[in-house]
């Protein structure tokens, strides 16, 4: 009887709507960062969408070391990079620890334009993405699996080379108008 109960609990645990299991990034952050900046230059609606500055938020889990390390690398790369603007639109970086902050409140409070999602675990990623997209926030991630989940733009790996991953419905959903030249280079996920 006890065994049967144990099995039932296990099945329920597995069926729990948490789809953000811990995933690893495919490409180092210091490569991801300039690539994302270049991708953003292909967005014809960037200016109209973000105004004169871009607030880029890194969402991570402080208790998950993999997530925390990526967040730290992202910060370090940003700080060390000489590129701090795109087409005269300045970029500022903030971090959101979803284990400590409420995401919705944080987005509202900090006027976030773009979200970079670090590797997460035990998080309902889809709800998190929907929350961003509902507010026309472009989502980026270094974890390729997250693009299929709904993240708009990601960086994967094809062979030994980085590959741009574009979730076209997600991109259209957040009113981003990427140039077809970019789309030609990227792997389109519909």
């Amino acid at each position: 009887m006890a065994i049967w109960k144990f099995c039932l609990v296990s099945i329920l645990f597995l069926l729990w709507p948490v789809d953000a299991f811990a995933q690893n990034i495919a490409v180092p952050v210091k490569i991801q960062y300039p690539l994302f900046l270049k991708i953003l230059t292909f967005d014809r609606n960037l200016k109209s969408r973000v105004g004169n500055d871009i607030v880029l938020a890194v969402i991570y889990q402080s208790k998950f070391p993999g997530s925390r390390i990526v967040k730290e690398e992202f910060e370090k790369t940003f700080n060390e990079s000489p590129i701090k603007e795109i087409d005269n639109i300045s970029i500022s970086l903030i971090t959101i620890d979803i284990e400590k902050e409420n995401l919705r409140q944080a987005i509202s409070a900090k006027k976030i334009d773009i979200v970079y999602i670090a590797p997460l675990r035990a998080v309902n990623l889809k709800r998190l993405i929907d929350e961003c997209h509902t507010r026309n926030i472009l989502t980026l991630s270094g974890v390729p699996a997250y693009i299929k989940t709904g993240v708009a733009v990601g960086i994967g790996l094809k062979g030994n080379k980085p590959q741009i991953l574009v979730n076209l419905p997600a991109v259209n959903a957040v009113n981003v108008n990427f140039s077809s030249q970019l789309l030609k280079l990227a792997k389109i996920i519909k």
Partner: protein
Amino acid sequence: MKFQFEYIFPRPFTRIKTKFTLVVTVLIFIISIFVYFFFPTWEKKQAMMAISEKAQSIAQMAAYSISPAIVFADSEGISQVITSARQNKDLAYLFVVNENDHLLGQFAPGKTGKKSFYKMQKNHSISKDNATYNVIAPVLSQGKVIGRLYLGISLRELNSRVSRSRKISGLVGLVIFLFGFIAAFSTSKVITRPLDMMVETVKQITLGDLSQRAPIISHDEVGRLAESFNLMIESLEQRTAELKLVNEQLYKENLIRKQSEHKYFSLFNQIPDAIAIFDKKTKQFLDCNSKITKIYGYSKAEFKKLTPFDLHPAEEKSKVKRLIDTRNPEKPNRYTHLSKDGRRMDVEIVSDEIEFQGRPAWLSIIRDITERLQAEKKLAKEQHLLQSFMENIPDAIYFKDMEGHFLRINRAQAKRLGLDDPKDATGKTDFDFFTEENARQVRKQELRVMRSGKISVHEQVKILADGNESWVSGTKVPLPDENGKIIGIFGITRDITERKRTEESLKIFTEKLMARNKELQEFAFIASHDLQEPLRKVRAFGDRLWAKYSDELGEQGHDYLLRMQNAAARMQTLIDDLLAYSCITIKDRPLVKTDLSRIVREVLKDFQIQIENVGAAVQLEKLPVISADPLQMRQLFQNLISNALKYHRQGVAPIIRIYNGTTGDKNSSDQEPLANGFHHIRVEDNGIGFEQKHADRIFAVFQRLHTRDSYQGTGMGLTICRKIVEHHGGSITAKSRPGEGATFTIKLPRKPENDI
């Protein structure tokens, strides 16, 4: 045909100036036309190729750029591409359609409202108004056509550039033509002027004036031509003079050549060898010299009807047919030829190819070698004889050069030298075979012979290795060459050891014999001398008996006593003769100069009465003075004259002739050859003579051919004569026929030191 045409319509004289100007003008005109048409057309073609490549390039780039915009329905991207393409100023239009020909974007200034304009264009075509160059490029995505680009490049600028180029080309062509015409005209004038002047000069030279020279008025090819022409004229002038000299020389050479030909024909006919020339193909004789007619007996005309085969005997013809065309001019061939009368001749022929009267022929020089071959055969025979002599003679023969090297030896000499083959001695000397002392001695003798040129005969004893003596008799003769110069020596050596031994034995035997003979002669002398005493007593007592008791003896006693007295007297004669015979050698008196004429005259005096009794006629000619014993000589002639008087024919008066036969006498019946070194004194008579077979017998002791009753004598007269003559180193012979007299020939040695 051409000649006739030109004869009827002679070609007019056209000046070089006219031809040159006309040709150059036409050429320049063609060049001008070419410049006018070629360069603009070429430029347009090049520009069209550039425009085509440019349009194709723009279209391809645009299609490539616009492909993702069509895929992602990126109208803004399409516009961007069109805008980018418009950067090219020559772009006339650009239409972008998708795969369903739905227009996605366009650039068509001036063609608003004509949206389907592009559909009428063809790829890589020029529009009807010649304003645009049209290109259609497909838009591809992943190998699939997803749209097309219609693109036009404006040709307006090209057309204006071509038009401008054509105007410039026309102008340049016109300028070239004008300047070319002027230049051609001027050049032709410059070129032809000196030529005209040269023509004038040539005309003067043609008339025979070689002193004319072409003026040199330009320093170019024509000037050089004029210079060369002048040099040629100078050369021609010199050559003309030289030619004249050469003609004279040729005339002289021709004269010499004719003389040479004359000499050649003289030589051809006078050469000692026969020469015949026959056709190489037909083999018919073409010519021959006069020697042919002498050798073969044919006339020249007869010979020319023959071929070489007619000269050969039947057995040789096949050989001649085989070899007649393969003769070696350097090697004579030997054949047998037949003369006209069938006489066979050995000939030697040397032939060579010549060209005679324009056709190939053989020239054969024929030499009659019949006599030469006979001489060669004789020589070979003599050589064979010499060789046989050399090989078979037991005497050793050798030939040496001046240095003493053996040139040739015979087998006997080889054997003597210890060689198997006589050739092994060639080049060697005596020093290679004998002891140095012997060789040196021989060499000394040889040098003496070669220097003196006199023959040396010597006998030599050599001590052999076994200690025995070996005697050789050598004759060394200087060897002269054909000019008489002494080039060596040859000699004959004979082993005379056996002969020497025999001589030695003979000498001993002779000495013994002489001793015994002397003893015998002494015995005879003593015996005959001692016999005289009892005989004298017999005769003395006989005489006393006759004187005192003849009356008492009676008739028979008288007869016996007379017979005894006669026998004693004959015995006395015999003893006297025997004594005389013995005394010849026993009483060895020295020889003195003896005048034989005087001796004979004294003897004749002694026989004076006897001569008169028989009525003999004695002819005494001059006899020599010799070295002899005068008494014995007296005895000799006394005996011979006595015999001549005694044995005369009955009723025929004796004729006795005594003469010196050495000087030769045509009247002499003696036909014997005269021996050198001897006086031949002959005593000739016309007596009864004797059989020649008794010629030796009559000289034997006590030998008589007649009975004592017929002719008195002891038979010792001629024996004594022979003994005397032999004692003087001579001999005596007799020749006679019965009834024809006899001739006694006394040979006495001629001793120069004693002759007078």
